[in-house]
Each structure stands twice: as structure tokens, then as C-alpha cells.
């Protein structure tokens, strides 16, 4: 799932400064699941903007709404007329949603309220962790199902660096050393022989941007 987080309020406020009538548009998919851009957050952001504008004695039409997905034209089309009555739409979707909306909603600028962060898993209520870097060359099959490209800040492929301490990562003691986890998992599964195999350098050409995928090439 895609995880995004709201931009700092001041940045958002600046961004919509020149627009009188603004719609904060939540997205009902990934960002709702990660709690940062669903209806609840859209309402809250809209309220905050109304207050800030109220204090500055400025036009304070800021509404909130949510659609199921901003990254598909069909969903956007259903609300196009309604959205067209605003001077700007402040999208709480991921970067894909914002770009799609701009493409399909030519007459209204769609601005990003979010910083799109990563593909992640929930690790407890209200907490997400990046687990996949979308590297295009998946190694999970030989790393016990734990991604070193993502979970190790250095993304190294042949075992831990010398920096782990008490099973924690050198870069931040808050996170476990991915390679310690991989080693343990593979040991538990009797796959240490696999662990010992040298892994060649990654083929980064798979990550050439913009990535494209065709279902039936």
C-alpha cells in the first residue's frame, strides 16, 4: 500500500493562498487506510484552513469531500462538475492521484497536500513502515522474504555491514538490522546455504524512470 503524509500546514496554506474557493479532496483508498488522507483528515485540514483564513479575514470557502480513488479517470469524472466550481482542489491523494486529477480536470488546478512516502505495511495502529522500494528486481526469494533493498538503509545484498549493534541498525537504533532479521529467518527455515551465496550487484536498469508496465506487451 502507498503511504503518504500531509505536508506542513504552512506550505499547504501558502500553496492555496491565491485561490478563493478551495476543495480539500480526500482519497478513499491507500491514504485513507494509512489514515493521512481520508475523509476525516480532509475535514480537519479544511477546518484548519478555514480558521487560518478567518484570522486573516480572507474568503473562507474551504470544503471537504472524498472520492474512492483519484488515480482513475472514471472516479474523477463523476465529480468533475462539482469540482469545477472551485478555484483550486487540494488533493490528499498520493502523487499519482494529483497528477491524474490535473490531467483529467484541466480547468481547475489540483495541488498536492501530501508528501507521498513509500510502499508500506502497518506495524501497529497508526504506524506504517516502508517495506518495498519498487526496485523492479525483487530479491525477496533469496532473502527470507525480508527486503534488504528497503529495510537496510544501505540496501546491501551480501549480509550485514559491520555497523549493527545489538541487532539494531547502525543508521538508527530504532530499527532492527535487516540483515540480522534475514539471517535469523533463513536460519529458522534451514536456508543458511542460500544465505552464504554471493549476490551480484543489482541490475538498476530495471528501475529506469518513468517505469512502465504493460499487461500484455
Amino acid at each position, binding site marked *: 500500500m502507498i503511504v503518504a503524509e500531509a505536508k*506542513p*500546514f*504552512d506550505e499547504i*496554506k501558502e500553496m492555496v493562498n491565491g485561490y478563493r474557493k478551495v476543495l480539500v479532496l480526500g482519497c*478513499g*483508498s491507500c491514504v*485513507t*487506510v*494509512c*489514515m*493521512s488522507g*481520508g*475523509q*476525516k*483528515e480532509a*475535514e*480537519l485540514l479544511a*477546518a*484548519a484552513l*478555514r*480558521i*487560518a483564513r*478567518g*484570522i*486573516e*479575514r480572507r474568503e473562507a470557502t474551504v470544503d471537504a469531500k*472524498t472520492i474512492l480513488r483519484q488515480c482513475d479517470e472514471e472516479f474523477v469524472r463523476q465529480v468533475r462538475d462539482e469540482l469545477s466550481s472551485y478555484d483550486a482542489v487540494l488533493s490528499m491523494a498520493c502523487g499519482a492521484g494529483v497528477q491524474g486529477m490535473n490531467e483529467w480536470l484541466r480547468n481547475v488546478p489540483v495541488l498536492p497536500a501530501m508528501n507521498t512516502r513509500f510502499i508500506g505495511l*502497518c506495524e*501497529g*495502529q*497508526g504506524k506504517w513502515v516502508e517495506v518495498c522500494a519498487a526496485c523492479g528486481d525483487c530479491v525477496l526469494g533469496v532473502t527470507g522474504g525480508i527486503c534488504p533493498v528497503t529495510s537496510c538503509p544501505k540496501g546491501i545484498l551480501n549480509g550485514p555491514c559491520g555497523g549493527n549493534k545489538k541487532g539494531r541498525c547502525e543508521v538508527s537504533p530504532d530499527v532492527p538490522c535487516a540483515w540480522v532479521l534475514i539471517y535469523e529467518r533463513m536460519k529458522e527455515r534451514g536456508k543458511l546455504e542460500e544465505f552464504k551465496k554471493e549476490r551480484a550487484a543489482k541490475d538498476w536498469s530495471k528501475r529506469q524512470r518513468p517505469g512502465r508496465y504493460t499487461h500484455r506487451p
Partner: protein
Amino acid sequence: MRPIIVPPCQAACPINTDVRGYVSAIARGDAEEALRVIRRVNPLPSVCGRICTRRCETACRRAQVDAPVAIRALKRYAADLAIGQSFFTRPLSSYPEKVAIVGSGPSGLVAAHDLALLGYSVTLFEARPVLGGLLSEGIPKYRLPKEIVQREIGAIVSLGIEVKTGVRFGKEVSLDGLLWDFDAVFIAVGSGKGIVPQCDGVDLSGVFSGVDFLKEVDRGDRQAPGRRVVVIGGGHTAIDAARTCIRLGVSEVTVVYRRSLEEMPAGKEEVLRAEEEGVRFVYCAAPIRFIGKTRVERVRFARTALGEPEESGRRRPVPLEGSEFDLEADAVILAIGYAPDAEEIKEAGLKVGERGTIVVMDETGATDITGVFAAGDVVTGPMSVVDAMASGRKAAGAIHRYFRRIPDNAFDRLVSLRPLETSVTAAIQKSERQEPSLLPREQRTTSFDEVESALDHEQARREALRCLNCGAGATVDGECAACLNCVRVCPFGIPAMGAQTVEIDVAQCQACGICAAECPACAIHLKDDARYPMRPGVDRVLEKAREESPDIVVTGFYCCFRHPLGPPVERHALSWIPVLCLGRLRESDILYPFEVGAEGILLVSCRDEECRFGRGVRLLAERVERVKTILDDTGIGGSRLSVVAGDDECDRFIRGIERLGINPVRTGKRVAA
């Protein structure tokens, strides 16, 4: 028949009172609303609040955690605030049909009440000079003061009911005569005849029926029956007779029951009260003969052993050979049961059942004579006040349908919520049941003053807050994004992933509202949200506060569990909004008063470890931090929001707000952070 799922208390109540509804109204201090909820189904609330057999409490799921909610006491608390006050008025348009109601016990009264409200002209025939049946003559006044009964009856009669007292059906009026004058007849003459055991000596003087005894006492015709009285039986009547004897000055009162205390229909609490007053109890003994010349002198009993269970589920007492013993007595009160007067019924031409009861076709109370209905104890044999009321209600409905030719479409079936699962009960905070205070013992044995008093305000609020709000919990709508936050956040582990969306088991949900406040899709709704309309509530409260304090208005949200008696402090500038656990407040709920111009917001919550729902306070703290950041960002300033505990903190906060001045939303001046 469509099943409607209701809380167990409501399902158990024969008149299906919305217990949760009125209890939660009391919990938030709205006793008037509570009474309205009660009155919707019950025209005798002060009576029921005293002597109802409270099947609701037996069913109450709070018992799975500690003890049932004191529902009856709460009803009395609310009902006594406006005894005898009319809540409803007779409709302007009325139907031409006339109904005769015979017997003014609870069954007849409720039928009269309902039919009058439906718009029929009702005439109530009563053999005795007073209305009320056993309520007025029978149930002793130390449990049910008679003026209370009369005031409630007065309100019913004031709906325009014609009353004919001193008119005995079968004597002054006949069924044929009534059917000539009226379009329907409803018979609710109760069960008036005491049952007499088949043994030698029952005809001796000094041996009499318990019901008759109690009626005579209420009529003022009775002095102490003797010095040593033996009461035989184990029901309400037996205990009432024994306790009445004590009050009449009888020095030695012994109740003899043929089974054990466990099996006693009267209930342990009643026995305890009687013992406190000096009544002696002998269990597992049955009378075999009454001994005396003309007047009874002794009673011979045989010890019993409990054998196979009978139909009723209770075990059959079997006399033990050679275990006889005698008890001296100069009066014996028989309270082993009572039944309708079969002769009276037979004479009227109605079909008589086994124990002298009137045979009816079904729940509607229709008899085999068209236009004649019957209900109450005369149909069921001795039951209870609320059962009699329920049957009167059903009959009134049936009479209405009979007149209006509405087919007897099936009644809605009320189905109770399932019991709580142990994983849930284990997570529910325990809390002590509030008991009404009792009259001192000396006063009880010398007068007929009411023994039990009402709960005081504090007790009532506390007790009402013990209600688990069964079935008033969360529901999930189609906006659910299946993010599973509710699954992760619920203190009771109730939400679970269904086929497409999360499902919340209404039977287990504790209605804390925590999941709803966390739901990022705003897809969770609480059934009782309508009673706590957060935004309109805030608007109203703010508007009022603004009138009194034009400069500074502080909105306070307080947790009802922490402050059951209402707002923690009263101040000019403070406008309070009660919330059942602040854990249900969303960030936007906290922010809203600022948007509409409040100068400050005060949150009075429990301490973390005291939170009724375990994690409400912790989550609130996280949300408050979030809102403070928003306040700083927007230019209102986070210091205008605070979570406080004590009174002086409230005052300190208000002073701080006074220094900060007007909410910049109102002035349009951004203050430097």
C-alpha cells in the same frame, strides 16, 4: 414477523421498556427525558419503580461483569420527579366505539389508558370503592404507598375515563348487559380467591387466606390476628403477610416453606428484609393438619425432602415419614397461592380453564365470545403487575384492531442481544452497584412507612453510568476502506474484517466510540450519536454562553464517568458539554468550537488508568497534541487548548485565556505565536 434486536433488559421486560434509553438519559442528567422514555410505554412508572419483579435486572448483562444495573431504582428515581403528571392528552378526533373495562387492576388500567389515548370512550367498572386492584388493596403500603398509586391512577383517569366503582360484574352488571351497552368488553378481574390446602382443620377459626388478610389490612379492617402467627407459603404474599403481621405488633411470626430458600419465589432480598424485621423462617416443611378445638392452636408439619423436578423446574417436595413436628400458633395465614373466582366466570358464560382462569384464544386476549376480551391474573393466574400491564396493552391493541378491522398482523418479535463474550467481560471495568437506602429497622417494625427510599441524584447518575449501553454501539457504513484501524484500536477486540468491510458485532460492542473517532473514512457511527449531536450542541451552548460572557467563552468537554453529577465547576465564561468518555472526540470535534469563535477549550478527562474504556484518555492525549499543532499552525495558538484535572486548574486556565484575549477568528488579528 420481523425480529428486532434489542438489549436483553428490553427484551425481558413484558412491556419492552427502552431501559437503555432512559438509563442513559439519567446518566447524562436528563431525568425529564428519562421519564418521557418510560412513560411512552408505562402509565404506572412510580408503581413499577417500587414493586416491579424486574425481569430486566435478571437479564441485565452487567451481571456478567459484576452486578446488574439497579434498573428499578432508576425508574423510581425518574418517575418520582413527576408523579401523577399527565404526559399525554386524549386525541381530538375520537372513534364512536365504547368499551367497558371490568376490573381496575394494572391490567384494566393499562387497557383503559391505551384505549382512551386511541380515542375510544372507556368506562371502568370496579367492584371495590377504590381503583387499582391489588395495587390499592393487597400489596402492602410499606412497599407501595397508596397515595402514589392513587396519583398515577388519577392521571390515567384524567384521560377522560368514566369510572364506576362499587359495581360488581355478575351482580350489578352482567356480561349480556354490558354487551348491549358497549361495543366491546374487557375483563380483568384478577385472581382473588386464596387456595386452601387439602388437610384436616383448615376450617378452624384463625386460619385464613393471605391475600384476604392483606386486602383487609389495606382496607383498615384488620388488627393483629394473634400473638403467634404461622404463615405458610414462599411467595410475595407469604412474606408480605409476615411483614405486615410484624407491623401490626405480632410478637412471633414464622414463615414455613416446603422447599429451600433457593427455590423460594419471593427472592432472597425479600427474605433478608423480613428476617431483619424479626420474621423467622422454617424451610422444607409442609403442613399436614391444623389442630385446635374451635380455634387453631397448633399446626403439624412434616419435614420434606426435595425430589424430582416438576414442570416448573423446581424440585417436588416429598414429606418424610416420621418427621412430624408441631408449631404453636393462634393464627395461621395461608399463602400458598390464589386463583380466579371460577364461579363468577362460569356464570358469565365464559369458558373456564383448569385453575379457574378464563380461557382466551391467544395473546390478544380474545375470548370465545365475540367482542369480549380478557387479560391479567384472571387469564394467567397470579403473575405480576408488569405482566398484567402487558396483557392489558395487548388486549387494548386487539380491541382497536377488532373495531377498525385491521387484520391481526403478527407482532414484531423482540430478540435479545446475545450474552457478552468472556473476552469482553474481562475487559470491562467493574463498578459497584448503588443501593437505595432503607428505613431504620425500629421504624420498620412499628409503622407502615415506606421501607425503601429513592436513589439520590448522585447515586442515580452513578448507577446509570454503570449501564453498558448494550446494542447502542458502533455500525459501519459503506465508506469503510477496510483499513482495519478499528480492529487495532478497539479496547474490547470487537471489530473484525467481514467480506468487504469491517463488521462490528452489535452484541459485543461497548459503545465507547473510540473506533469511530479513529476511523479515517468517517465510516463508523454510534447509535447514540443522535443523542450527543456534537456540532449543533456546541453551537447552542456557545450561543448561550456568549450572551452571558461576551468577551471570553471557554467550551469545556467533560467526561461523564469522571463527573457523574454534571460539570466540574460552574463559571460565567464556561460552557460545558458532557461526553461519555472523551475518547470519542475526534480532532475535528475539539477544533470546531474554535472555528465558531470560542476563546478556549478545556477538556476534563479521567486519569489515564481510570478510563472506563482503558485507552480513551491516552488516545485523547494524542489527538490533543495534534490539535495543538494545528492551532499553532493556524495562528490561534495551542495554549488555548488544555486537558485539566482539578477546579483551580479550570480557573487558572480561564485566567490564561483572559490574558490571551479574543479568539483571533473573531477579530481577524493574527497573534504572534
